[in-house]
């Protein structure tokens, strides 16, 4: 496991109290906390290098551009992108997927076509496709999941028989912790003639990602879940696809020449980065990547899997607790319910002991309907969580049971 005693002091927020207790932050699937190095990188950027990028002829503007582009290089290397030109900075996963839907989707999807998503997708990988399909008269096909919370591969195969234009799925489920066989799914989808869109929001922070070996076409990620600032994120794509796509936002930076009635476009990735970009977010993301690389993604994945294993073992010893998601291999996401206590009440009670968890539908309402629950409680782990955090979680859950006199169901 990681040496959390050395990691925790790097995170200023972990030094503060939550309701008088040690802050036990277990909502990392929603957003991660930020190390001092990321916070400092942003402060340093504004203190010494701030200027608008890609246009100034003066030294400061060159420095800002270099800082911004260095972050692109770092991210390209981090996920083994097809090239720097295949890294488009966005506000996060949601914007990245909307970009693909609005640009590639509007150009290539028409009446009678099919777009495939899965029942475990986050709303951000469902709703943009619903909007596209409604606009184009196309069909959205949702692939079912198995009892133990995996993509149902036989239903996935049936969905591919309709020769979909797009197949979208999450690498790691934010609601279940399932690690999907992304390379296999992508290969099957390609054989059926589709392009693949992988929601990488929950995978990029937690395991070694290599988009070239996944061989997907588009890969969306968020920086704020991987120690970076909110508003940082990217679309990683095959450059040939980006080259052929129309722009997403019109404005400055994304053009080559502008006439009275028409324009030509800048080269990729700049064609998709209209307007002044969020340079501070990119710089902060670059610092986050450096921090993660120094720990090593393999070790991070092992650490979280061990915490998840331990949390599941300890929680399921409590009568009335149900843990959702696959048995065995899973990411550091542990969704659960406890008897007839509503997850919102659980979250409030745990918070009194400084334990922060998420309660609700986790932006996966179609999945919740299939699980037959309105909501779950979810503990999710990251590099600074340790066994003490699990102790605090389990103790607080037991307390909730006492307060409510759980009717174990």
């Amino acid at each position, binding site marked *: 496991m990681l040496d959390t005693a050395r990691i925790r002091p790097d995170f200023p927020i972990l030094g503060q109290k939550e309701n008088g207790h040690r802050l036990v932050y277990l909502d990392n699937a929603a957003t991660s906390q930020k190390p001092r190095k990321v916070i400092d990188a942003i402060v340093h950027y504004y203190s010494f290098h701030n200027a608008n990028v890609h246009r100034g002829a003066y030294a400061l503007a060159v420095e800002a551009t270099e800082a911004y582009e260095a972050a692109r290089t770092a991210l390209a290397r981090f996920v083994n992108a097809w090239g720097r030109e295949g890294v488009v900075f966005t506000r996060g996963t949601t914007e990245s997927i909307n970009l693909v839907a609005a640009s590639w989707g509007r150009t290539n999807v028409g009446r009678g076509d099919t777009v495939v998503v899965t029942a475990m997708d986050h709303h951000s990988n469902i709703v943009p496709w619903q909007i596209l399909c409604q606009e184009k008269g196309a069909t959205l096909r949702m692939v079912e999941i198995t009892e133990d919370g995996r993509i149902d591969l036989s239903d996935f195969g049936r969905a591919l028989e309709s020769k979909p234009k797009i197949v979208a799925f999450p690498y790691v489920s934010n609601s279940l912790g399932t690690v999907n066989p992304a390379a296999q799914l992508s290969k099957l989808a390609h054989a059926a003639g589709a392009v693949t869109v992988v929601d990488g929001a929950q995978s990029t922070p937690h395991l070694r990602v290599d988009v070239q070996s996944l061989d997907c076409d588009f890969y969306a990620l968020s920086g704020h879940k991987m120690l970076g600032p909110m508003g940082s994120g990217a679309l990683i794509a095959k450059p040939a696809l980006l080259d052929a796509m129309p722009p997403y936002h019109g404005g400055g930076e994304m053009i080559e020449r502008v006439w009275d009635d028409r324009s030509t476009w800048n080269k990729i990735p700049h064609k998709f980065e209209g307007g002044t970009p969020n340079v501070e977010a990119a710089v902060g993301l670059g610092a986050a990547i450096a921090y993660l690389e120094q720990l090593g993604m393999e070790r991070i994945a092992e650490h979280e899997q061990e915490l998840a294993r331990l949390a599941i073992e300890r929680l399921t010893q409590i009568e009335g607790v149900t843990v959702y998601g696959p048995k065995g291999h899973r990411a550091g996401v542990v969704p659960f319910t406890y008897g007839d206590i509503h997850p919102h009440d659980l979250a*409030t009670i745990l918070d009194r002991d400084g334990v922060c968890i998420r*309660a609700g539908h986790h932006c996966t309402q179609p999945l919740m309907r299939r699980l037959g629950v309105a909501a779950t409680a979810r503990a999710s782990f990251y590099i600074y969580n340790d066994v003490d955090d699990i102790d605090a979680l389990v103790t607080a859950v037991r307390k909730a049971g006492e307060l409510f006199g759980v009717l174990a169901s």
Partner: protein
Amino acid sequence: MSPPDLGELYQQVILDHNRSPRNFKRLDAANRRAEGNNPLCGDRIQLFVQVEGDTISDIGFQMPQGSGCAISKASASLMTDAVKGKPVADAEAMFEAFRAMLAGGANAPGKLAAFSGVRAFPSRIKCANLAWHALHAALQNSAEPVTTESARDF
């Protein structure tokens, strides 16, 4: 300042109404009805109100699919007890008093004061208000489902 005690939020009367909600029934013949949604957590309430003349002669609620936390369920239960058999104008006045209490004002009358502890838990105020907004909508004969994200003072 020490954090508020959980016992102030989960008062015994709230735990009791959560465990055995009153008027937890469908009224198929109800002449007023409304649906309330909390899109943040997915909680839903269906409210059925029978108004005869100026009086709420019967009232019932359902929370589909086991949704509804202790606060929203107990609030709906206590609300139905409080307004059943009362004039519509009195129910609207209770709605105002309840809202005012959660916004930091004086305690609402009777058992409704049990929810005064919710003030110290801002993330739970919407749970306590949901049933009351649904009641208001039903009495106004509003066809639109109420949502915690559209009512400005939730």
